[in-house]
């Protein structure tokens, strides 16, 4: 029986593990199917983590976290969790891919979120064949070529700037004429000669052939279409929370969720189920920032420690 099972190895999961083990919990396992680090490792840079003044790539930024967070005995199981359910005695069952399972006295769910689809025709067909959600991964394949970045938030604008260093031109396509990104980033985008703004349009469809994407058609409010012939489209239109492991066999969720599928927690990151905590992107009102996820993880780690010890 584990004292604590942590599901997910991003900033929230690693911080939860650090606090729980440093606080004295002995049998703490973090389930993460690969190398820990989380979604931020796909980000081209991080410049808003207080105390880390040097601007690093997400990958470099997260590199020391595993070493530090595992210093006090946190164990990493390279397994994929398929479901968390409650046992009659109040402990939890952690079902793993492949049919095995583990038992735990408490659980912290930090499964984060994944990029949302923009839902245009051809998006799924050409995903990985021109449509991408990771500029640091795939920008390289479009060196000196033209690409589209889709979206109007911080991620879209930051990654458009990143792509402008590699690609010959970046069309920033957004459905409004205003951006939700930070003013300093908007300024950089507007002053970048390699970025062309295409605003107040939606993507109608992506087209291509068996080798991959050849372009997209966008349409404005008046119905006027424009063909943007590019081999690459990077989609940054927000995130979906990864809550599937909380879904039970009958389709209900293990704990209370809001209407958008975010996990309802109190200020202690406690869910509606005793001993079950949630931290990071998938909780209600999450700011979806690394520093917030780390803070959530620390809170949940401390609370889980308290729960198990009393």
């Amino acid at each position, binding site marked *: 029986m584990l004292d604590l099972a942590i599901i997910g190895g991003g900033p929230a999961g690693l911080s939860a593990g650090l606090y729980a083990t440093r606080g004295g919990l002995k049998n703490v396992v973090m389930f993460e*199917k*690969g*190398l820990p*680090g989380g979604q931020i*490792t*796909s*980000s081209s840079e991080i410049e808003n983590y207080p105390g880390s003044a040097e601007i690093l*790539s*997400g*990958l470099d930024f997260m590199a020391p976290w595993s070493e530090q967070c595992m210093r006090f005995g946190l164990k990493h199981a*390279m*397994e*994929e969790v398929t479901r968390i359910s409650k046992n009659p005695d109040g402990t939890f069952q952690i079902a*793993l*891919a*492949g049919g095995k399972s583990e038992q735990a006295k408490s659980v912290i769910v930090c499964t984060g979120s994944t990029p949302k689809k923009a839902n245009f025709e051809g998006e799924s067909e050409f*995903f*990985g*064949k*021109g449509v*991408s959600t*990771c500029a*640091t*991964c*795939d920008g*390289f*394949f479009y060196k000196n070529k033209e690409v589209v970045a889709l979206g109007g938030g911080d991620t879209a604008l930051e990654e458009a700037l990143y792509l402008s260093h590699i690609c010959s031109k970046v069309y920033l396509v957004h459905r409004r004429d205003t951006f939700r990104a930070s003013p300093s980033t908007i300024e950089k985008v507007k002053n970048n000669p390699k970025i062309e703004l295409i605003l107040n349009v939606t993507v109608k469809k992506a087209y291509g052939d068996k*080798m*991959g*994407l050849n372009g997209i058609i966008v349409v404005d409010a008046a119905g006027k279409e424009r063909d943007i012939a590019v*081999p*690459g489209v990077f989609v940054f239109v927000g995130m979906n929370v990864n809550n599937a492991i909380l879904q039970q066999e009958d389709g209900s969720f293990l704990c209370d969720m809001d209407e958008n599928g975010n996990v309802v927690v109190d200020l202690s990151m406690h869910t509606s189920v005793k001993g079950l905590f949630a931290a990071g992107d998938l909780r209600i009102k999450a700011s979806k920032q690394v520093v917030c996820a780390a803070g959530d993880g620390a809170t949940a780690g401390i609370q889980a420690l308290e729960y198990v010890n009393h």
Partner: protein
Amino acid sequence: MGKYLELNASNFDSTVAEGVALVDFWAPWCGPCRMIAPVIDELAGDFDGKAKICKVNTDEEQDVAIKYGIRSIPTILFFKNGELVDQMIGASSKQVLADKINSLL
């Protein structure tokens, strides 16, 4: 414990020509690629002598990446006796990859 094979333009075809091969197209700057790196290492051990677990560094082997139309990484290709039989885009779990290899053996 077995180690994965590094493939390049000169040894790619001959390596995948016989038996079952998993080929992971990756690059050092790619977060999801680094995330599955330990999974690939373990698969190389688990399938030692049964299937070939291979990696292609797309940064160094751009011609191979172009030949297979790689435009997103990680992309994992599965070969059986030289024939491309399946592919997975993005970071998959060890279980999913192992199941796929087992289904081809």
